[in-house]
């Protein structure tokens, strides 16, 4: 029927020509009915885009052969049948130049073979924005199960509660290599103000610049002491007691630190057998940096 409906109207059809989205709706009414709510509907509404960037065929390619083959999936670009790389290429044909996706080609997700359809559901998205397949945290938890565990801990950023989203700190489409640490990690972290750790977007009181910086913060980043997703320890610390965290770096040994001669060992006036000295931040209150004291006492 579709062939009869479409075919005779065309005098000399090309081997696989564009037929327009109106043809697609005849067999795919369930998709078409809600398509006006889809961000991709803009291509149809504008009426100015070329056929290869308009409506259904903008993503699925020319549909004539598919129609003539009575819906054969092999005759059209069917995303459910495509390899991850092909899905990525199809989406990047339009989205590749978006600023947020310019690093997608070299992102950890792309290297691991995670394509767009792993996170996005183009026709059946249950969420209001970005055509995600699920609410954002569940999309991420689907692969990052250990991150789910971290956000379920007593001390955590409020992602499960809905106050924050993974994309407040991460760009799942890839980000420039982080440069506040030497290695590749943390991956997919989007810099704040284009240059600094995203933590400082909210925790601006830690931003400085301070007359006396705690070099660990500036050189190796907040993750030196904190676990940003979640922790069993107060203030998202890596250790349950603060003094163990401090003393593991302040050993005075090796060629570490800003002078390369070891990080200052604690004062001889501190008796670590006395519980009083096991609360480092009771006195060193400005541990992220101070304007008034090189030992962060005020």
């Amino acid at each position, binding site marked *: 029927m579709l062939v009869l409906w479409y075919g005779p109207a065309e005098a000399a059809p090309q081997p696989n020509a564009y037929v327009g989205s109106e043809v697609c709706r005849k067999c795919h009414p369930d998709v078409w009915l809600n398509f006006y709510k889809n961000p991709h509907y803009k291509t149809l509404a504008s009426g100015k885009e070329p056929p290869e960037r308009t409506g259904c065929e903008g993503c699925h390619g020319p549909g004539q052969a598919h129609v003539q083959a009575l819906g054969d999936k092999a005759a059209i670009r069917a995303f459910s049948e495509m390899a991850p790389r092909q899905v990525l290429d199809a989406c990047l044909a339009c989205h590749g130049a978006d600023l947020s996706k310019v690093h997608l*080609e070299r992102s950890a997700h792309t290297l691991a073979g995670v394509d767009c359809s792993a996170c996005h559901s183009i026709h059946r998205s249950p969420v209001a924005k970005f055509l995600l397949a699920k609410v954002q945290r569940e999309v991420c938890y689907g692969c990052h199960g*250990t991150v789910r*565990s971290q956000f379920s801990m007593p*001390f955590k950023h409020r992602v499960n509660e809905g106050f924050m989203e993974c994309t407040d700190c991460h760009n799942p489409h890839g980000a420039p290599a982080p440069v506040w640490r030497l290695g590749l990690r943390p991956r997919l972290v989007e810099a704040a103000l284009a240059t600094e750790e995203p933590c400082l977007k909210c925790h601006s009181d830690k*931003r400085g610049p301070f007359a006396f910086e705690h070099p660990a913060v500036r050189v190796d980043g907040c993750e030196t002491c904190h676990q940003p997703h979640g922790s*069993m320890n107060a203030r998202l610390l890596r250790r349950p007691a603060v003094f163990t965290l401090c003393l593991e770096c302040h050993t005075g040994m090796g060629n570490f630190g800003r002078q390369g001669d070891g*990080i200052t060992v604690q004062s001889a006036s501190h008796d670590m057998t006395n519980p009083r000295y096991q609360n480092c931040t009771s006195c060193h209150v400005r541990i992220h940096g101070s304007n008034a004291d090189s030992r962060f006492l005020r």
Partner: protein
Amino acid sequence: MRGAAQALALLWTAMQLAGQPTVAPTPEAVGPARGREAGNYNVVQWFETGYRLRSVGGNAGKYRSDVNFGNGVRLLGGRLSVNSRDGHGRFFDEIVLGMQGLGNDPYQLSSLRVQKNGAYRYDFTWRLDQYYNPALTIAQGQHFLNTERRLQDHELTLLPQSSWRLILGYTRNRQDGPGLTTVQQFDSRGDEFPLFADVRRERNEYRLGGEIRLFGVRLNWLRGWDNYKEDTRAFLALPSAGNNPADLTALEALRRDEPYRGSSPYWRLNLRAEGRVFAANARYAYTAGRRRFVFDESAAGIDRLGAARNRQILLSGAGRRPVAAGSLTLSVAPGSRLRVASHTAFHHTRMEGDSSFREVNNLTLGSALIFFQFLGIRTISQTTEATIRLADRVALYGGHHYSARRIRSLEQFRTGPVLERLPAEQDNVFHSGQAGIRLAPRKPLSVNLEAEVGRTDRAFLPIGERNYHGFGARLRYRTRTLTWSVAARTNYNTNAVSFSAHSSRSRIYSAELSWTPGGRFSLDAAYGKLHLDTISALAFFAAGRLNFQDRSLYASNLHSGTLGARFEIGRVSLYAGYSHVEDAGGDRRRAPGAVASLPAFVAAQTFPAAFRSPLARLSVRLHSKLRWNFGYQYYGYREEFSGRQGYRAHTAYASVLWSF
């Protein structure tokens, strides 16, 4: 058609349910899934109004820190979406309004998107977080916070589908509320005292940007002005003898003001060009950070030697931190089987400021100079990654990363009449390589295996990455109704130099299952184990003697699991779930010869604790546009570390979910 609508509604419900972490709002659908027509627009809306209640036994402060849901009436959730049917609305084509917890929840949010195709797009989010943290294990609980954080973000894009577009944005972040802090007086060996603090912090960011496409090249620019400030005041409410009664230091009065005003104006430029086989992206960003500050503290009392003291510290100055960052990324795809990407980046930051500040001591009528410590960090990095598709179902990938970092610092001290300068400079070089294989043996099944190795010639911190390697594996099976995945990863790092040794091992295992055989039943389950043990060299003073042959041994074995199932029987839907996180600690502290000599270390090196939360929710469809809901969630926290923070909390809610 009706069947398709029902399927859509059920799909929506099932997808919202996965791993539901909090009992409310209710993730059930109400009203017609496809909405109703109003002129040229389609409208979908639902709202949930209800009452939350809670009962807490044990440490209520810790409950507020972890969970913080309270009693009262709320707009638990809601959504309104309006879409033009032809994409040619007069003033707008889409409005999407979402909300959660409005009224009285500790976590409230609202978002709005309004757009007209081809003309404009406006996004707005507003969030509120009531942050309560007694932090009993930090500074003896004297760094307590009971603050409220409000965030709002606006972004307006004009001509979003045009070859040139304009972007305007504004972000505001405000934190205020009472807190506690501590101060030490009157010298570096004196006692410490808790102070009240009235926290007031604010950040405002304004953005103006644009994008132009010309001859296949896209230029994106953004100019931003980020201003931040703090006006927190700290004061002593009553005369205090301090935390340590054996110390003679006492405070009769203390007032501290330390306002600052910071600004970080920035530029970001991005240039992208792409052809059939290549893409190039160049990016440059510059932030000119500056912060002006005043520190004014006056204290009166008795010092540790029993003498009356009256001290004022007055400081003012300004610090600067210009940051420049840039990168060039090239991607080449010479054939359908090979992709190569190269990323070269630099980052340069300098922290510098006024050369000196004066500290006034009005007891001695003397003053001391304090010098800004310069710190400069310059990093250059290069990453090359390649993917080769060997066959339809097999691909190899690998890459190399190189970083060179130079750290410069200048510390200055005045010792009597002599100004001492301590300049330092050091270079760190880092290489890492990674390789992996992707397999797709059957259509829904994918397998990833990868390895990574890294070497640093000189780590900055004793606990930093120096010689590390890691292995990871992931299996994933995904169909429309069933998804399961298992993953494992292990990382080893050693950072040992003369007199100092550090090593860490982590092993991570996780498994996930999501099964939605139909709209009437769904099951989600996840389990994860995170094992970490580290050993680090220590040096500390005990009873006046330097102990440098000790070791810090830390062990953690975290187990976490979630389980959730949803059933729908007629008009009734039922959800039951359970979440459990437990740190089982470790037994390496008992290993012969591996125990730290300081008992406090032994006690602090493992932290067995458990946090569990079962929940159940009942939702009854009274009418196509009305549901009644009831839910219960229990939170239990138990620890074997200090024993002071355990609690049991019963929370519940009753609500109606309605659509009109």
